[in-house]
């Protein structure tokens, strides 16, 4: 009995494979006519068989690598490695001249047919990610011919995520098909509504406009409103994410400035150039490292950029700023001069053109999270900003150096009287602030042009952050950067980038009138100058 069953099963399997092989042969035979309508039939039939070599054949057809010999009735395809493979048998043909064959002609209509057919084929791919991709492709093309393949796959799909995508793809096809029963179409509208992205919105719009079925139309109108609300909410969230990303950049650029401004009461106009030096350090590190280590270039660049900028910062402090103690406005001028010199020096060394800094693989690309676009590189920058903030807070709160630095910030003369060497603290604070700017430069090299003018673009924004946040506390800088970054990105879609920026500048000018020392001012009598 079991044997009989086995035989029956084997027989059944043979039949199906035979049937399939026949179907493949039939489909392939149509290529010999080399007429566009016949070729299209061949493509669709080939895809419907789901044969293992169908993707290779279709791929070859799309690349003009499918060759026929009409006389001998042989169809072969050329692999990318220039081997000739018999399409029917899968054998490799040796010693055959490809020139004896004729290419199967295709046109753009056929190319899209191939694409759709490939989509249907990949629907059955064992890799769930491939299947998901194929389902998405069908959703976008709304190719009705894929419907059968979709439903077939859907009936035994094990992965719930892929199943959802398949359902959505199916919905996209049936929702516009007036022959589908009303209930099915309404269900399709609900599926699209649940998906709720821009593509489904345009699809639903189409349904709402075209459909003559009142039930479908009502469902579509309802879904349209729901998707619209959902999308509006998403776009606010998306702008919020952009804003947080912008805020992290601002925070990185401004936090070093806040330290030096807080401790020494001077504005370092060359701060932007410290950022630029960090970016150029990244460039030099990437040029010096062998390509195999490129993944690690940023990890190497971070401490180096900190060192380079810190050393230059100390040099500026020791050679210039130290002698201008107590004259903050002159310091502003002198550091502006330093910034001009640094810019020109970098221009002389590296040229005025932008330098290419590449992103390591783990930082490039972007991903989709609950309908929100997130750029991986930006995410790393946010992480770096948080890391730098926490590290600085720890340095200021939990180390003896931080304690002394806070003492000098609060009351320089009293700190000096208590035996703190204020000159040394100034130097170290400047090194720290500049070094952090260098770290910011490494991050900025990933999202901005590495050019001698890099720093100039950030210096005014950094001032605004420091002025808004005040110098009493690094939390002020964090808050200032977040407010400016998020407000900028939320205003951008409403009134445009430039007008938004102007509004923010005006807001800061007005804000200063109300709180001349920023959000987090130093408390106590030392404030009134």
């Amino acid at each position, binding site marked *: 009995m079991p044997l009989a069953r086995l035989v029956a099963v084997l027989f059944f399997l043979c039949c199906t494979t035979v049937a399939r092989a026949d179907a493949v042969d039939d489909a392939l035979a149509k290529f010999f006519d080399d007429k566009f309508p016949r070729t299209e039939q061949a493509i669709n039939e080939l895809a419907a068989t789901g044969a293992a070599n169908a993707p290779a054949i279709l791929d070859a057809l799309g690349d003009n690598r499918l060759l026929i010999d009409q006389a001998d009735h042989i169809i072969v395809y050329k692999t990318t490695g220039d081997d000739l493979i018999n399409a029917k048998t899968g054998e490799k043909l040796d010693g055959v001249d490809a020139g004896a064959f004729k290419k199967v002609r295709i046109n753009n209509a056929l190319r899209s047919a191939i694409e759709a057919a490939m989509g249907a084929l990949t629907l059955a791919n064992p890799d769930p990610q491939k299947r998901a991709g194929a389902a998405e492709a069908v959703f976008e093309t709304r190719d009705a011919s894929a419907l059968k393949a979709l439903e077939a796959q859907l009936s035994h799909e094990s992965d719930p995520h892929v199943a959802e995508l398949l359902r959505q793809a199916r919905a996209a096809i049936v929702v516009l098909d007036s022959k589908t029963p009303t209930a099915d179409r309404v269900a399709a509208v609900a599926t699209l509504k649940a998906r709720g992205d821009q593509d489904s919105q345009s699809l639903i719009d189409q349904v709402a406009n075209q459909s003559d079925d009142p039930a479908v139309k009502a469902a579509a109108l309802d879904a349209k409103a729901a998707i619209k609300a959902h999308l509006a909410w998403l776009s606010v969230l998306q702008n919020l994410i952009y804003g947080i990303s912008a805020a992290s950049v601002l925070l990185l650029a401004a936090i070093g400035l806040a330290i030096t*401004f807080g401790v020494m*009461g*001077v*504005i370092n*106009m060359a701060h932007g150039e410290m950022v630029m030096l960090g970016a150029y350090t990244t460039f030099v590190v990437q040029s010096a490292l062998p390509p195999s280590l490129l993944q690690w270039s940023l990890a190497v660049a971070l401490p180096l950029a900190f060192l380079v900028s810190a050393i230059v910062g100390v040099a500026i402090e020791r050679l*210039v700023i130290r*002698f*201008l*103690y*107590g*004259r*903050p*406005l*002159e*310091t*502003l*001028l*002198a550091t*502006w*001069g*330093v*910034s*001009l*010199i*640094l*810019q*020109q*020096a970098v*221009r*002389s060394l590296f040229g005025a053109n932008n330098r290419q800094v590449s992103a390591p693989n783990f930082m490039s690309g972007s991903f989709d999270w609950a309908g929100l676009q997130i750029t991986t590189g930006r995410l790393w920058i946010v992480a770096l900003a948080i890391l730098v903030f926490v590290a600085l807070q720890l340095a200021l709160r939990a180390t003896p150096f931080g304690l002394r630095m806070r003492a000098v910030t609060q*009351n*320089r*003369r009293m700190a000096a009287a208590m035996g703190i060497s204020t000159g040394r603290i100034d130097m170290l604070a400047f090194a720290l602030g500049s070094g952090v700017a260098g770290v910011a430069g490494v991050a900025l090299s990933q999202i901005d042009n590495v050019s001698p003018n890099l720093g100039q673009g950030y210096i*005014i924004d950094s*001032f*605004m952050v420091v*002025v808004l946040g005040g110098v009493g506390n690094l939390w002020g800088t964090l808050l200032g950067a977040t407010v400016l970054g998020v407000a900028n990105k939320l205003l951008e879609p409403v009134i445009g980038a*430039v*007008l938004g*920026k*102007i509004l923010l*500048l*005006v807001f*800061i*000018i*007005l804000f*200063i*009138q*109300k709180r*001349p*020392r920023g959000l987090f001012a130093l408390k106590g*009598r*030392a404030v*009134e*100058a």
Partner: protein
Amino acid sequence: MMPLPRLDRLGVAFLIITIGAAALAPILALVVPHDSAFAMPPYVVALLGKYMCYAILAVALDLVWGYCGILSLGHSAFFALGGYAMGMYLMRQIGARGVYANPVLPDFMVFLNWKELPVAWWGFHSFAYASLMVMLVPGLLAFAFGWFAFRSRVTGVYLSIITQAMTYALKLAFFRNDFGFGGNNGLTDFKDILGFNVQSDATRAALFSLSALALALSYLISRAIVVSKYGKAVIAIRDAESRVRFLGYRVENYKLFIFVVSAVMAGVAGALYVPQVGIINPSEFDPGNSIEAVIWVAVGGRGTLVGAALGAVAVNFAKTYFTGVFPEYWLYALGGLFVLVTLFLPKGLIGLLNLRRPARPTPPTPTPTPSLAQQEEGAR
């Protein structure tokens, strides 16, 4: 009636030079034959005219920075606003001679497909109205800005930063096409000023003379202000603001007045500048320009007025020379100038002059401003 200020020797020399130049330039440029050694080629007239405008700007800046301790980084904005007001007059004068031959609308508006003249442009066909605006617009902006800022006691570095923010905001605004002032390209292709061709040698010579006279006048006005009783209070504010306030002076009013006067002067400088260079665009608003103007004052000697004018001419002459001969090194030179002058030459070139004659009382020179902490100690 205000008594005429007694001029020191330097001031007299300065007035003789500026007024003399104003009288001499047209003769050298127009009457003396072109092949003579004394003849002034037209480009030199234009160049010197530009320097004169910068010198006026420097005097205006010295008035607020050198005498009142307000390091304004907004003076390039006042300069540019004055320039735009003049530029708008010059644009309206083009009339139907523009590329699109529209008698009312300037070319860029026709290009943007605008049908009517924006309200901001009304009246600019009249020179008198434009001249009024040259002074009124920067003056009002400075008044509004100063009214709030000085009342809230925004001082020192904070004031510098928000003046810079104002300049930057204006720059961004003027870059926008729909703001209605020519966007990126600004205003250019001028034809006539008061019916005279702006390109002609005679007009250029006249503009130069006017600029030189305006410089002399700015000097006289500034000098009158700083030697008056009012000026003494202003200088006291520079040196110890809190003390002056505790003595019962309304510090904000003193600051406001001098800030507005200075802004108007900067506006006039801009207005004289535009017909001589033939263009005004938003890059004139660049905050970097303001800082550069500050260094002219520092090089010449802040708190001396004459020094400021001298510094403007000297630095710009050096700029013209360097950018022509070694363009690579100009930024090094300018950057070095910023550093060296602040470190080693706090009294500027005029300070060098006075080194040789230490006996005479010099115009008030700045003492190093005390740090925040020291000021506050002193005030307590």
